[in-house]
């Protein structure tokens, strides 16, 4: 790889309104099976990105807290060493990738993921006839019996490398990602600019800048997973002493 990338995301909790646009965008970009009522009741729904909603305080003085959670693409990912067939591994661009063809479905990776962002195809996924032509040709349609998870829309990253770096001979920066629609689907869909995607190795990128924000923290930092997703803490003027995650 000519350019040394380290893809990552910064999530500003303070801006999140819990609108779920990212969830829907992800669903349609990545050929994620339809979350039917049945699937949700079985607690097997697929949400590569989800908004966790927590209530703080007691009625009537109550606040809703939203937390978008997706694969953290840990540098030291607990899911990777436990896979007996190397179906999940770390690539040299900071991505935790899942190789569907290798996966045999032991589900050990999902057990060992502290963020619970891995999803198992318990059933053969099915789409209504009219939705079949909506499937994204750039993304594998998974079969039953394998794990799947957020890829940081790796198909878009690859397209960026082909179109921007190889064809046009330019560097991939924030501007290129935005103008050529190459950001992950959730980032594009977010109306309040909560999610910022970019290259940590590019000193001019927004993610590199935001990662030094005084509000930054990583989810479950004590586990030593070293995620490539950085959160910015909620600003709460009324909170007396809010404890860290």
């Amino acid at each position, binding site marked *: 790889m000519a350019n040394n990338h380290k893809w990552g995301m910064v999530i500003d909790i303070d801006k999140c309104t819990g609108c779920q646009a990212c969830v829907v965008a992800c669903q349609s970009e990545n050929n994620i099976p339809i979350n039917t009522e049945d699937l949700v009741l079985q607690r097997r729904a697929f949400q590569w990105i989800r908004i966790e909603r927590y209530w703080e305080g007691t009625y009537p003085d109550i606040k809703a807290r939203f937390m978008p959670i997706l694969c953290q693409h840990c540098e030291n990912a607990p899911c990777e060493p436990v896979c007996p067939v190397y179906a999940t591994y770390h690539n040299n661009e900071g991505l935790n990738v899942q190789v569907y063809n290798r996966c*045999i479905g032991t589900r050990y990776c999902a*057990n060992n993921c502290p963020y619970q962002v891995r999803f*198992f195809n318990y059933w053969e996924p099915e789409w209504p006839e009219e939705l079949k032509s909506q499937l994204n040709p750039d993304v594998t349609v998974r079969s039953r*019996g394998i794990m799947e998870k957020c890829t940081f829309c790796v198909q878009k990253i690859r397209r960026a490398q082909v179109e921007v770096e190889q064809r046009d001979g330019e560097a991939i920066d924030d501007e290129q990602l935005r103008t050529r629609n190459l950001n992950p689907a959730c980032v594009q869909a977010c109306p309040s600019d909560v999610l910022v995607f970019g290259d940590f190795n590019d000193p001019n990128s927004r993610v590199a800048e935001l990662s030094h924000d005084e509000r930054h923290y990583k989810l479950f930092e004590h586990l030593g997973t070293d995620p490539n997703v950085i959160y910015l803490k909620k600003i709460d003027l009324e909170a007396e002493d809010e404890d860290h995650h």
Partner: protein
Amino acid sequence: MQEATKLGDKKINDDLLANIFGSERRYWLVCGFLAMGVGAFALAAGYMIVTGLGVTGLNRPVFWGFFITNFVFWVGISHAGVMLSAILRLTKAEWRRPATRAAEIVTVFSLFTALMMPVIHTGRPWRIIYWFLPYDFQRMIWPNIRSALVWDPTAINTYLTCSILFVFVALIPDLAVIRDRSTGIRRLIYSGLSLGWRGTSQQWKLQMMAGVLLSALILPIFVSVHSIVSFDFSMAISVKGWHTTIFAPYFVIGAVHSGVSAVVTVLILLRFLFRWEDYIKPDHLDALGKLLAVVGTAWFFFFALEFLYGIYGAEPDEIALRTTQLFSMPWGAMFIAFLITGYFFPVPMWLFRSVRRSMFWMTITTISVNIGMWLERFLIIVPGLMRKQDLSFVWNVYSPSIVEITIVLGTFCLVLLGVLLFAKAFPLIPLYDIKEGEVLQGEVTVGRAKVPAAFHEE
């Protein structure tokens, strides 16, 4: 010590080979019943593989449930084999004689069954070959040796190979006896299997040495197999109830607890089925009962330590897990049932000599232990996943589906049927070992008379 009558070689041969040359009706009835259970198992497993794991009660985040519990349980049962054959052989415990082969056979069949569990439990069992064998040479992709799931089959396959060798070496002289008593095609088969055994002193010497050597070689496996099975859990940094260093010894001693109990249950069943009252005596159960009381208490010590270490740090996620285990239904009820059936009922019972010598009470207590030990594994595996981390938004519950329950019950039939069918072709009590025992037999004084003892004690 109980008195016994000298049986003589001929009676021993006749009694112990009776089932091979003609089975009683009760044998076939029990086999038929078990075969129905195995049929249900096969149907359920086939249905699950064809339809997908959706038919189980598994969800997110409880990705492992009944099958992995059952896997750990059967690997645990298999520890009886080494415990009874290798360790008791090396320590020259005379009372082991009638129990050894049954224990080894239980080992072999429970290991087969245990191996089956993770295989049918994968999403794509037809690709399982990628798990066990190196593949894709061109791209240099090998099974991931960092994964506890690669250590697992390695350890279990080693154990299985050793156990089969162990059983076979011990069987050779008995196979020769069957060969000498049979005709036709059967004679041909047993001739092949007995490897030209003539019973010369040289052959006996080699057979003895092989037995002792295999016993010594199998000892490390005794410690390693269940330690490695426990690594499946203790290596998982993300699951609170799993990630603890005490798991290896805790699992090993728990395995012996459930394994030896299972062998007692099986021995009593065999005694009933094949009328082996002359061979499996209250004295043997007495000795096994004493062993069990010690092993059970050692296991309980580790259990208490594990629990204490868990709550000592008082971390919120650990407390959430323990609260679920203890105080939420149905887990709390299961926890109490586990404590009673696994320890507080059977072990105090074994302190009474009359219980240890009673077939009825030993059956009840040993089955109770295995109910408890099954629940123990279940209570480690499932609540740990239900309360994996602080993200309480995705906490979830698990309840098994009918398919899972059928498969789990079916495995019990499978192991028992395996043992019984084995008994149709091979003697489950080693003939020569009993004969040797008779030669070594001590004497006990009953009133003024001196009579042979049930087994020799130094």
